[in-house]
Structure formats: C-alpha cells, structure tokens
C-alpha cells in the first residue's frame, strides 16, 4: 500500500470532479465491439458506456487500438477498403447501432463530429471553415450561418482573436488557434458527440492548456470522447477513463478511481510509467 501511494503521487488526481452516479444518463454504449483491418484483428470485444455530457478518455500505449476505436464512432474506417466491424456501438436516445452496415456512414457523421490530431483546416478562410459543417447540411441562410459562426467561435474561445479577420486564410493562424478553429468547425452543426483524436499532441503547452480548459467547459454542452497518450491530460480533463491494451479494454471507471486505485495490475503499471 505504501509503495502504491508513493508511486501514485506522481499523478495528481483531481478530486474536485463529481463522482458518477450509477444511473447517469447515457449517450452511447459500446457492446462487445470488435474491429478487423482486413484479416488482422485490432479490437477484441470491447464494452463500456459513455455518459451524456461527460468527458470519456481512452488511454493506453501505442498500438493498443484507442484511435481505431475512436474512428469507428464516425465510421472513418469506411473510407478505406477491407475493414470490418463486429458487435455494436449504440447511440442514445435514438438507440441506433452506428456501426451496423445497415446504417449509412453519412448519417453517423452528421451526428458525430471529429477533431484530428494535426489541425487540418481547409485551405479556405476562417469563416468558410466554420461554416463548412452548416453548408454541407444545406443550411445556407446567411443570417443564420453568420450567427452560428460567431457563436461557436466564442465557444471555442477564438472569437476575439479572429473576429476582425474572418475572411482571411485559416492558414494564417497559429497551431493552437487552428486547432480551436477545427473545434469550432466541428461544433457548428451541434453534434451529439465530439470525438477528439489526441487533439493537443501537436501543440505547445500553452495552447494545450487552453484547449484542455475548453474541453472541460464544452463538456457541459456536448459529450466528448477523447483519445490521449498523455495520462496527466486524461486525469485533468476526463470524468471517466477507459484503459486499453493490445486491442482489449482492460479497465474502465471514473477517472479518480482509475488513477488512485486501479483494479488491474496492467492499468497500474501503465499509469505509473512501468511501460508504454
């Protein structure tokens, strides 16, 4: 016990996060989910819940399948041939299995947004980038779009910095600003869930901190699923954490518990830096 507490002091547990009640509302549930790249199995019978308007983090060493799992949520794998989903990922409240072949990937992507590891704004203006999600959905009325663009840029804490140069190229922004732009872009259509794939790994510490603050505040509005290789980040921003290893879910639970009293030996080893 002593050894453990000594090691765990390396990871600061944020005890200010509220404990999750067992009957907290769900936004999604992963049920017995497996995934294959062609013949190679990447994920094996993963199951865990995702609570509505909370931040769920997926952590694990490289190659554990966390990005693969994340990208299944918006059917990114469908863009490339030979991939196969098994099991279910059910979205609430519509109770839709979003990985079912009967469900059009387009439909899924209209409900679930994604922010990528490396900021990837379109080679267009800031305004056009944010408005993209609306235009693609046929929402073109200028007054509505203008209003919404401002709204999400404020939500992404970017409005003050860009309000005078909305029509300039998005590439003129710094890395951190571009990533916040991508967040605003993903938020604009009001998705049911936001997927973040290592969103700060390409950014400097200051930009990272700003985005982490953003995440915590956004989570009061939208469910967030984040993949991160930075454990401290997971400890800072998430409400629940899933630890994955070699394509399997090793442990899942409230973040505070995971980082202070993990059940599984492997979780503990990873968190204390013994591997990964």
């Amino acid at each position, binding site marked *: 016990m002593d050894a453990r507490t000594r090691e765990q002091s390396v990871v600061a547990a944020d005890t200010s996060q509220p404990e999750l009640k067992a009957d907290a509302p769900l936004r999604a549930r992963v049920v017995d989910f497996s995934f294959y790249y062609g013949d190679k199995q990447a994920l094996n019978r993963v199951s865990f819940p995702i609570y509505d308007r909370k931040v769920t983090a997926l952590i694990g060493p490289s190659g554990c399948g966390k990005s693969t799992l994340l990208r299944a949520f*918006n059917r990114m794998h469908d*863009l490339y041939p030979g991939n196969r989903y098994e099991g279910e990922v059910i979205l609430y409240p519509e109770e839709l299995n979003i990985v079912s072949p009967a469900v059009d990937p387009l439909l899924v*992507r209209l409900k679930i947004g994604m922010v990528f590891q490396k900021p*990837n704004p379109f080679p267009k203006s800031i305004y056009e980038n944010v408005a993209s*999600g609306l235009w*693609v959905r046929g929402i073109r009325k200028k007054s509505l779009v203008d209003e919404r663009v401002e709204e999400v840029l404020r939500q992404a804490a970017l409005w003050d910095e860009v309000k005078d140069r909305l029509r300039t190229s998005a*590439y003129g922004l710094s890395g951190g600003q571009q990533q916040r732009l991508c967040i605003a872009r993903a938020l604009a*259509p009001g998705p049911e869930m936001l997927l973040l794939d290592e969103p700060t790994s390409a950014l400097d510490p200051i930009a990272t901190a700003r985005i982490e603050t953003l995440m915590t505040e956004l989570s009061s509005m939208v469910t967030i699923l984040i993949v991160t290789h930075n454990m401290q980040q997971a400890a800072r921003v998430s409400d629940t954490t899933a630890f994955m290893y070699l394509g399997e879910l090793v442990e899942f639970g409230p973040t505070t518990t995971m980082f202070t009293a993990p059940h599984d030996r492997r979780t503990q080893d990873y968190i204390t830096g013994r591997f990964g």
Partner: protein
Amino acid sequence: MSTDRNPTAATDEQTLVRRANWQDLRFAIVGFVVLVMAMTTLLVLVGDFMIDGVPRLSWEFFTNFPSRRPEQAGILSAWVGSALVMLTTAALAVPVGVAAGIYLEEYAPKNWITDIIEINVTNLAGVPSIIYGLLALGLFVQTLKLGQTILVAGLTLALLILPIIIVATREALRSIPLEVREAAYALGADRWQAVWMYLLPTARPGILTGAIVGMSRAIGETAPIITIGALTFIAFLPPSPVQETFPFVSFEWLNSPFTVMPIQMFNWISRPQAGFHVAAAATGVVLLGMTLMMNGLAIYIRYRIRKGAG
C-alpha cells in the same frame, strides 16, 4: 598498419581510389556536356527562329491575310482561326477531362472496368496525333458530315488532349493531403459534396497546369488538322462571335472553314519562294512565343504549388 605488412597494398588501394574518382569525374563531365548540349539545342532553335523571323514581324503581318505575294502575306486568318479553335477545344476538353479524372480518382471501384478505362487513357495518350486526324476524318467529316469546320477541329484536338487533362486532374487530386480529405468527410459531407466543395478547389492549380499544357500542345498541332482537310489558303475570317442584333452572341463561326497558325506555317514552308520561308519563320516566332509562354506558366504554377502557396 597494412603498409608495414605489405607495402604494395596501400598503393593498390590508393590507385583503385584514384581510378574510381577519376572514372566518376569523367562521367560527370560527360553528363554535364550532354546537359549543356540539350540546353543549347533549345537556345539554338529559338535563336534561329528569332533571327529568321523577327524582322518580318510587323503590324501588317498580323492584320494581313495570306497572299500570293510573299511580302504581303500575313497571318490574320491563321491567328484568329487558332484562337477560335483553342476556345472550342478548351470548352470541350476541360470539363470532360476534369470530370473523367474525378471519376477515376474518387469514384471508380477497383475492378476490371476501371482497369480497362485506365489502360485505355494511357494508350490514348500515346496514339500519334495523325490517327486522331483519321478518326475525325472518318467520323466527323465523312459519317456525320459535319464539314471541315472549326467545330470539327476543336472536337479533334479536344479528343487529343483529353488524356493530358485527365492525368493532370488525377495527379492533382491524388496530392491532396489525407487530413483535408478526412476533415471533409468527418464533417458529414457525401462524396460529391467533398469533391465539389473541397477537393476540386484545392486541386485547382494542378488542374490548371494540366489544362495549360494541353492547350499548349493543341495550339501547335498540325497533322490532325491537315488530315481533316483544312484548306490552307483561307483569305477570310469566320463569322464574328458577337453580333449587333439579339442575342448578341452567335455560334455561326463554329461551322466555318478556317486555318490555324501551324498549318499556315507548314503551307509557307512548302512554297519555293524564300520570302514565304521568312513568313513561316515569323509565324514560328509567334507560335514558339505562345507555347514557351504557356509551358513556362505551367512550370511556374507547379513550382508555386510545391512551395505550398495557399
């Protein structure tokens, strides 16, 4: 160390090294010489034309019709014809070529039909231009009886440069970074929306390069135009595209007989009088100027793309 044991070993190695470096140097010199020769060939060619042809250039040269007298011959009908034919070619080749390129790069499934289309496009790129002339002769002029008109010339050249545009479109689409594609799809766009709203605009410079190269090729093509039977002594202009009465735009010129600059040049080369040869050189200056400029522009755009402008 080895020098103590075997005094000749070191010198053997040294000789080998020296001979090797000498061999490399010799080849580098040869290579450089070949390089310089290739460069100067272009210079000599351009220089020859400029020496022979520039003195002949004048306002009258551009505004006179061809004549039986060499001193009065001009390229008015030729350059107007070239311009109109280029317009037709571009209007036909670019939309169809870009559309085909988009299909092959973004839509086509990996099956045998797609394979055949791809082999086909590659093959068409290598078919001699005169064969396109024979196709046009047999199909457009004889079977469809469209006559020896600007429209037929435009159609023929459009078919000729179609593979260039298709390949350029595909390359341009292929070079769009994966992140931009995934971002578009992640936003909920379907394939057509992604292509039309994001991929095509991003690929525009590359496609433009291909279009310019294609047009530069078309402007200098002689053989297919000869084969469809374009007359070589045209002393009139096609009907103007703009007219004074409604609807102010006319398409009659599409149906008109015509000539183009390379044909005019060829015609003058074939005449015995030296005066016509000079006129041919002058036409060559104009043609060279245009193709060098267009190719130069394409190279410049490609350079800017590589530097990541935008």
